């Protein structure tokens, strides 16, 4: 695997190789000395052209735990969003002998475009409404951690599926890994023809939750929603939000995932987010290990 631009392209075997490697990486973060020498002397550039705390810090920690040098580039004060400027930047980074480029951008396709200009591995850390592959991998890992496997598990993804790169990456990854994926949300937030991705659309949250192993709540992205896709936050919370009572519809051992940051009281009630079935903080922990696995595998395979 030379790039990680999406979860649509890699084979099931490639995804599983990343999950297997994540298992070993997870242990490193539990040591007193949380560092191995594997990527000593390598340079990882984290180019985050859209605001991000969790993912950027996660990639930075992942690189450092592998002993790579991590350099963070942000868009603040510059006008990097034009395609031409980006390709120039790519050439400059290349000339500085970076070994890996991690990119987040608000426009779909930017990581893929940069990958075409560069000979080094490019990792998509989220591009617009397109994909966020490392998030899907850490979600898959968290599911495997909870149940031992993914095959046959029922995963319900609830919320703004149409505008969610997390949902898109998860749909590709989880169906490929053998899960039964259901989606539910307001009709304005469900893509037309979504069945063709091998998922089952549900008309209510109750239908989606029934017997589910995994409940994945999506964040309502207030900053992206310009038009009114739902009447009000209160209405959304009562129709599509996850409460403790609703969660009883899922299996007794069901787990709850959320990519963060959480809008408490909107898509998920605090009573659920902070309770036992929640794996939200495990997801963050697993995110570092997942990104270590991806950095480790890509830096070798790309040569």
């Amino acid at each position, binding site marked *: 695997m030379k790039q990680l631009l999406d979860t649509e392209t890699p084979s099931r075997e490639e995804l599983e*190789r990343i999950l*297997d*490697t994540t*298992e*070993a*990486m*997870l*242990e*490193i973060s539990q*040591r*007193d*000395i949380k*560092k*191995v*020498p*594997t*990527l*000593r002397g390598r340079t990882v550039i984290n180019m985050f052209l859209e605001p991000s705390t969790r993912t950027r810090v996660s990639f930075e920690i992942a690189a450092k735990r*592998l002993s790579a040098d991590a350099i963070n580039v942000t868009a603040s004060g510059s006008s990097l969003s034009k395609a031409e400027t980006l390709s120039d930047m790519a050439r400059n980074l290349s000339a500085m002998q970076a070994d890996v480029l991690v990119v987040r951008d608000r426009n779909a396709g930017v990581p893929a475009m940069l990958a075409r200009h560069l000979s080094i591995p490019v990792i998509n850390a989220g591009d617009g409404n397109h994909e966020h592959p490392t998030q899907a991998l850490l979600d898959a890992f968290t599911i495997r951690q909870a149940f031992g496997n993914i095959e046959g598990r029922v995963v319900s993804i609830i919320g703004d599926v149409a505008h969610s790169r997390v949902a898109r990456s998860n749909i590709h990854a989880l169906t490929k890994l053998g899960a039964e994926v259901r989606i539910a949300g307001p009709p304005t937030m469900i893509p037309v023809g979504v069945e063709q991705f091998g998922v089952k659309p549900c008309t209510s949250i109750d239908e989606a939750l029934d017997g589910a192993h995994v409940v994945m709540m999506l964040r309502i992205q207030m900053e992206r929603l310009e038009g009114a896709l739902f009447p009000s936050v209160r209405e959304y919370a009562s129709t599509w939000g996850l409460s403790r009572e609703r969660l009883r519809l899922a299996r007794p051992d069901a787990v709850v995932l959320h990519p963060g940051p959480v809008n408490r009281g909107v898509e998920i009630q605090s009573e659920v987010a902070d309770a036992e079935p929640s794996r939200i903080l495990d997801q963050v922990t697993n995110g570092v290990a997942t990104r270590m696995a991806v950095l*480790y*595998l890509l*830096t*070798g*395979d*790309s*040569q």
Partner: protein
Amino acid sequence: MTHSNSSSGPRSRGTDPRVSATEASSGGRTPESLALPGSPDRGSPDRPASEPAPSGSASSGTRGGSALGGAIAAEGAALDPSEAPQPSAPAPFRVVLDAAGVQRAATRLAHEILERNGGLDSVAVVAIAAGGIPVARLILDKLEQITGQRLPLGELDVTLYRDDVVGRGKRPVPHRTRMLPTVAAMRVVLIDDVMFTGRTVRAAMDAVIDFGRPEGIQVACLVDRGHRELPIHVDFVGKNIPTQRAEQVSVVEISPNTFEVRVA
């Protein structure tokens, strides 16, 4: 032999690619080889870091193979097949240490470890994953028979510390390390199945020290096949088996908890 090999290390590089290729595939190549009682999660990781580095650690790639997959690539040229009963008859390998021989070697290793350390009080046994795990369990069994004391076993994967993985090339999937709660101030006995280039032990020493400062580190192996490329000394050897570089040495589980050593 070891000496001559170590000095010839760099020169032998020419043949390395071939060696590594063969050895790299050893885990998968010998299907019957070691199902790795010790590796819970996966059967056959993609082999080692072998294709790699022109700088050459093809041979260490071999060790990578053993560490990761189970079967050990070693070699045992000129070994006397006579020594083994060869239960599974005609096959393209020779048994250089049969099941009874493996038991005897493990018993002797246990006694030597006890004697050197004056008991087990400050001994911490750490297996190098994955090939060292079954060998270590065997030695722990013997130690228990002798002393009545069952020591816990640490499992150390050294993939992320290897000099050949640090280079470039298809990455092996590491095993999860399950280290003992503490190694600080302990006498750590590292156990591996086959001693070859010494690169695995070098990586393992770095890894152990990341977990704390041990009072000392000792190394035990079931088989020493020679061809050291680093100045690494083995404290306890089950059996010395002279081999040719290109040969492959495997510790194979022929029935539950019964092992023999083969050279192909």
